[in-house]
């Protein structure tokens, strides 16, 4: 027994095999606990139990999703790997963008903590994904936040919107990272389970890639950054890996507390460490804290590590060893440093006033041994903690209700198209998100070439050449509810299209799969179908998934969220100077609609406004998406278009409105020829959400060339109007005229009305 606490040592565990341990309270199931005992050949110590419980949680081990996620690897072809420098499995994927530059990017969830404690939950979501990016050796250059809330007028929604938006801004703005995009969606299915996903992107040179492994026997292990406190204990297990239930006590202590200043200093300090080449391996501390960092570093390297846990600097000296191992205190990193580099490491820490403590060293024993005051409290094979967790083939079946839902197609229309467009553009999901995005810094770093509300965020990487990247994240929970396989493909298609609309060539994918409880076979079916759909679609479009995150148990009681696969696509530009904005500016330019419009209103925003969710989502044709993307990228590269905007939620009505409002420039539009060509009525022309469509504005001098290109690629093209700077109105001739001032007021008034 140790002096300070009643410490449960390995010797004690061997001597008291019958002692009861709180494994169920820590989130382990009986069979999982039995497996731990079997691996160790004895009961675990309290500290070992803490480590296994967090590392074998759903959040850390992917035990329910692993068997499905393998498809992302299995369906990757050699051609898709062409630009991939680091694939799935590391802290984040790394993609080659040319000229020796690489980009690392990933989207993650912080859903559960953000419901419990919105400000800190959302803030630390940004912090966590940014540390993943730093761990790869990159300088973080931008963030994006796909957000989903409950009904806009529900009494609890304002609490979440205010806290989450302020948390993202408070953290991201203080890090000096431009926030260049994302989504804000309101739907009652997210009422008790808001989705706070955070994407970060970083830039590095090929030779600067860093990986998380502890190699080199005798190399030293160091923990640096913020001190370890009592916050976030059990964040990954009892918070993120269980459904919410009113009967259980508050989970607030399981939420971490963020310190963005500490993280900003950590970014600069880590980049200086990389530049000075004084770290051999590095790992950020996120979910499962020191348990995760030690076991992953050790099992990815020479297989052994020896740590003295009393060396950990603490905010709260009363923390027990188990709590120290489980704490998810933010702004911490662990690195492996050769003894020769230790002094140089310390000098950089001192320059940035960052605290550090040498915890131990790398060994070749194949064991992770953790001591407390000289007594062994953990002695495990680190692979059994980090990689050999349980894997479940959860049962799943197609929901019995789905046939009935799919048979219930939307039949409505709108007698007054003018009023309908105003209603659509002021609706919670289609209204201007300026009230949110104006709380985020989009300018810092000086490389933002496009940001909200354009189709994709665009960041310059190389100031000499203009080389840069575009990013877009998209998902549609309603489509996925109606058909999860197609919903995943639609999410990828939209993100891919958005990136191409900005003028960039799509290269790679990250995803954040948000679902209800995997223990519900219907939810599990939605998940399985989603992964299958996304993996198939990635193969068809030739863009690999490079990393991401799964968030399960987004459900309260028996009610799950809509299946929501958030898909982020990264594209590359030779020169961001040729990026295409979503709005037109030049008088007299021709406006073209690319693609075919069908009667596809099931799952649409308009049906949603009428309280209808049924039928089947729009048909997705990925070959057509590929052609459309090629048309858009080539048009941008060859200067054939001045504006481009994709058609997605809200259809042509939304795209025309947004393109006009972007720079406050009107247009005269005719849709009669479109209706005749595609055999649809005016309402369908405006509100259908058929895929594979975009509108572009073409300078007069480029019209012949543009038409020739579309004809050569056999892509449907129709001239539907002309940019009109004289009349500040959206004039859909023969149907209605909407002054831009009126449209703008309707579009911009909604969020301030509810939240300002």
């Amino acid at each position: 027994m140790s002096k300070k606490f009643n410490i449960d040592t390995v010797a004690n565990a061997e001597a008291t095999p019958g002692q009861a341990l709180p494994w169920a309270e820590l989130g382990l199931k009986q069979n999982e606990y039995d497996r731990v005992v079997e691996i160790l050949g004895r009961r675990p110590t309290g500290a070992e139990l803490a480590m296994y419980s967090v590392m074998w949680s759903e959040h850390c081990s992917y035990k329910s999703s692993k068997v499905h996620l393998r498809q992302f690897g299995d369906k990757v072809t050699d051609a898709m790997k062409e630009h991939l420098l680091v694939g799935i499995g590391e802290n984040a994927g790394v993609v080659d963008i040319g000229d020796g530059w690489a980009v690392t990017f990933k989207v993650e969830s912080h859903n559960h903590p953000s419901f419990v404690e919105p400000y800190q939950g959302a803030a630390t979501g940004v912090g966590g994904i940014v540390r993943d990016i730093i761990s790869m050796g990159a300088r973080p250059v931008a963030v994006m936040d796909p957000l989903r809330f409950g009904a806009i007028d529900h009494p609890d929604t304002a609490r979440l919107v205010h806290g989450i938006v302020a948390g993202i801004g408070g953290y991201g703005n203080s890090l000096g990272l431009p926030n260049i995009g994302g989504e804000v969606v309101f739907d009652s299915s997210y009422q008790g389970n808001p989705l706070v996903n955070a994407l970060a992107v970083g830039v590095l040179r090929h030779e600067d890639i860093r990986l998380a492994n502890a190699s080199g026997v005798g190399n030293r292990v160091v923990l640096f950054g913020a001190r370890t406190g009592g916050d976030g204990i059990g964040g990954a297990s009892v918070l993120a890996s269980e459904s919410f239930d009113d009967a259980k006590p508050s989970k607030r202590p399981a939420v971490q507390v963020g310190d963005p200043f500490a993280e900003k200093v950590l970014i600069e300090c880590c980049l200086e460490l990389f530049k000075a080449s004084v770290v051999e391996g590095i790992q950020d501390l996120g979910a499962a804290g020191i348990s995760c960092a030690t076991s992953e570093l050790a099992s990815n390297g020479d297989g052994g590590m020896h740590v003295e846990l009393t060396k950990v600097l603490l905010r709260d000296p009363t923390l027990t060893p188990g709590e120290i191992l489980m704490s998810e205190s933010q702004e911490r990193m662990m690195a492996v440093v050769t003894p020769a580099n230790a002094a140089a490491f310390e000098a950089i820490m001192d320059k940035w006033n960052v605290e550090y403590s040498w915890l131990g060293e790398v060994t070749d024993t194949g064991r992770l041994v953790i001591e407390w005051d000289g007594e062994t409290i953990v002695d495990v094979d680190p692979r059994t903690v980090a990689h050999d967790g349980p894997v479940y083939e959860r049962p799943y079946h197609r929901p019995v209700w789905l046939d009935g839902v799919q048979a219930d197609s939307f039949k409505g229309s709108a007698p007054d198209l003018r009023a309908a467009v105003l209603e659509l553009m002021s609706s919670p999901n289609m209204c201007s998100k300026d009230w949110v995005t104006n709380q985020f810094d989009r300018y810092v770093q000086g490389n933002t070439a496009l940001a909200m509300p354009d189709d994709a965020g665009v960041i310059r990487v190389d100031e000499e050449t203009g080389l840069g990247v575009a990013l877009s994240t998209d998902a549609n929970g309603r489509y996925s509810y109606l058909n999860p396989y197609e919903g995943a493909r639609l999410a990828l298609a939209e993100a891919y299209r958005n990136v191409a609309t900005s003028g960039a060539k799509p290269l790679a994918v990250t995803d954040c799969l948000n679902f209800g409880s995997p223990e519900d076979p219907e939810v599990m079916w939605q998940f399985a179908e989603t992964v299958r759909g996304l993996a198939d679609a990635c193969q068809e479009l030739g863009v690999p998934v490079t990393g991401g995150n799964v968030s399960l148990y987004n459900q309260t009681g028996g009610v799950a969220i809509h299946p929501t696969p958030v898909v982020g696509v990264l594209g590359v530009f030779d020169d961001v100077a040729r990026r295409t904005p979503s709005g037109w500016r030049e008088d007299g330019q021709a406006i073209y609609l690319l693609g075919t419009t069908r009667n596809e209103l099931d799952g649409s925003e308009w049906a949603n406004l009428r309280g209808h969710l049924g039928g089947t989502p729009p048909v997705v044709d990925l070959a057509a998406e590929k052609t459309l993307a090629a048309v858009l990228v080539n048009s941008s590269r060859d200067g054939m278009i001045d504006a481009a905007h994709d058609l997605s939620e809200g259809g042509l009505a939304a795209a025309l409105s947004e393109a006009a409002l972007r720079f406050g420039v009107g247009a005269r539009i005719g849709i009669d020829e479109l209706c005749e060509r595609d055999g649809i009525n005016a309402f369908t022309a405006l509100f259908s959400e058929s895929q594979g469509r975009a509108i572009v504005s073409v300078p007069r001098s480029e019209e012949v060339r543009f038409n020739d290109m579309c004809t050569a690629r056999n892509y449907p093209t129709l001239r539907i109007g002309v940019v009109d700077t004289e009349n500040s109105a959206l004039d859909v001739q023969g149907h209605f005229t909407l002054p831009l001032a009126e449209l703008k007021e309707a579009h911009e008034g909604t969020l301030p009305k509810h939240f300002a």
Partner: protein
Amino acid sequence: MSVETPLIGDFQPFPSASTEGSLAGIRVGVVTFPGTLDDRDAMRAVRLAGGTAISLWHGDHDLRGVDAVIIPGGFSYGDYLRAGAISRFAPLMEQITAAATGGPGALPVLGICNGFQVLTEAHLLPGSMIKNNSLHFLCRDQRLRVENADTLWTSDYAAGEEIVVPLKNQDGQFVADEHTLDELEGEGRVVFRYVGENPNGSRRDIAGISNAAGNVVGLMPHPEHAVEPGFGPDSSARGEVDLRGGTDGLGIFTSVLKKLVG
């Protein structure tokens, strides 16, 4: 800052000031505190204006012979106590304060956003900044009027000229007692004023002020983010611009360079 700066170089060459070789001889220091964010942006603005940007570290005791100093934006020390309250005690701030108050030929100093807050905390400028009256961080393209074009940092503008530069801050509401405000107005030390809707509740729409000698200027909006076509605001008060083409902030940086050459 000795950290690598991978994102450097000119995106598009500037036809204006950058061709004047003599300006390149002017060395403008940009200070980095822990938590400073817009330091590389301020250095880029100096380069685009034709000058030479020199990185200065808050803990140093040496101004490295610079001809002028910019204290850039950010959240130094997290703004945790009060914006700028800890940074003012940095060793380098002693050097800056001494050099900026040295009578004729005193060091030109510009504080942007957090830098302005540091200057008020250091008592190089009067007044203080409190939380925006909306209580939110606010990022938007802001129209300003240059009220005083006689300072070292505004001489490339005409008095009364309007400019558009990004505004982005949480604690941007300028406050001072009535006597101080009257004094600032009376002495022509209100350098920039918000035009249109007051974004944050600042007294008398004040966006930027100077010291009595005119060598020290502070302003809350960010001129260094309106210096490069393609990466600035979508609009300009100086006429039509291209997408993100606003470069109205460049005059701040060319002003001081030309004055120092002259």
